[in-house]
């Protein structure tokens, strides 16, 4: 995954026109997505282990992250 991000950024350095910037933004988006995926993974593991208190904590973390996106969009 990280390698993919790196390749995307490298690709950009060879193409210094607008589309390159979009590719890099995609790469950055991927970086941001990684930890979110990790939290989702933790959530599913906790639910599977019937560890509902910690599953709830994971869900709260996810909610807060998405709230961050929402705030970003609203305050643009």
């Amino acid at each position, binding site marked *: 995954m*990280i390698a993919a*991000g*790196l390749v995307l*950024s*490298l690709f*950009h*350095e060879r193409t*210094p026109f607008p589309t390159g*910037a*979009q590719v*890099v*933004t995609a*790469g*950055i*988006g991927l*970086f*941001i997505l*990684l*930890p*979110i995926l*990790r*939290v989702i993974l*933790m959530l599913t593991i*906790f639910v599977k282990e019937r560890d509902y*208190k*910690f599953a709830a*904590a*994971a869900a*709260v*973390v996810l909610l*807060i*992250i998405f*709230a*961050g*996106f929402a*705030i*970003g*969009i609203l*305050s*643009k």
Partner: protein
Amino acid sequence: MNTGTELWLFAVSLGASALGGMLGMASGIFIVPVLTMFGHVDIRSAIGASIVSVIACSCSSAAPFLKGRLTNVRLAIVLETATTAGALSGVLLAGTIPASYLFFIFGMILLLSAQQMLAKRRDPALAPTQPLTGRSTTRRLDSSYPDRALGRDIAYRVERLPMGMMLMYGAGLISALLGIGSGVLKVPAMDTTLRLPIKVSSATSNFMICVTAAASAGAYLVRGYIVAPIAGPVALGSVVGAILGARVLMSISNDRIRLLFVVVLVALAAQMFLAAFGTDLFRGTA
């Protein structure tokens, strides 16, 4: 933004995070000052770029810690509710706070890191622990980790969780505001409040930084603070730099570099304070 600038950004962040990595520190604390002072990058864009590189570094170094069973995942997720909430408040504040305040807070954090680097970390788990208190939920956070040096598992318990949560909220806030991992704030919080063993708190803090940074980076990205031509090369450079730095960390003695770093940190802090009060040595007037 031409290829030359990108190469320059790449090289600078490589250097910054190699330096950071040598002492096992996050790179963000060097990247923002260097970008704003020498790159003449707007502090908000610098913060946006830095937060991406924080994610990149934290993610790429988390795997070995998890494998070594050093990360307390349960504790991490509980504390993450506080850090992400803090990050959210930080993002909200970042929109309203004037840039000069940001410089000032950054200077304070730099000084704090310098002070922390001078003081040797004492292993809190080795200090006598208080008798068992707290509810069963807290107790389920207790865990153990394998200590290679002693060759056995060391059990530890988590103490004073509410206080720890509050400190984590603060750490998350600062992290989002300044685009740093703020391990500087997390690690002492875990050392002195939760009384975790050093290895566990380093690993768990690293694990949390990633998620905290993602919370603020998401908001910054949709808000347009993350400028791709800056953030791309910076993220790339800092990952490479962190790997190089970690390699070097194994092979050099620590004390002299530690001192050098304190000097660098204090110098950067001084520069940040100057910028905060409107005079800038490198740009004339801010």
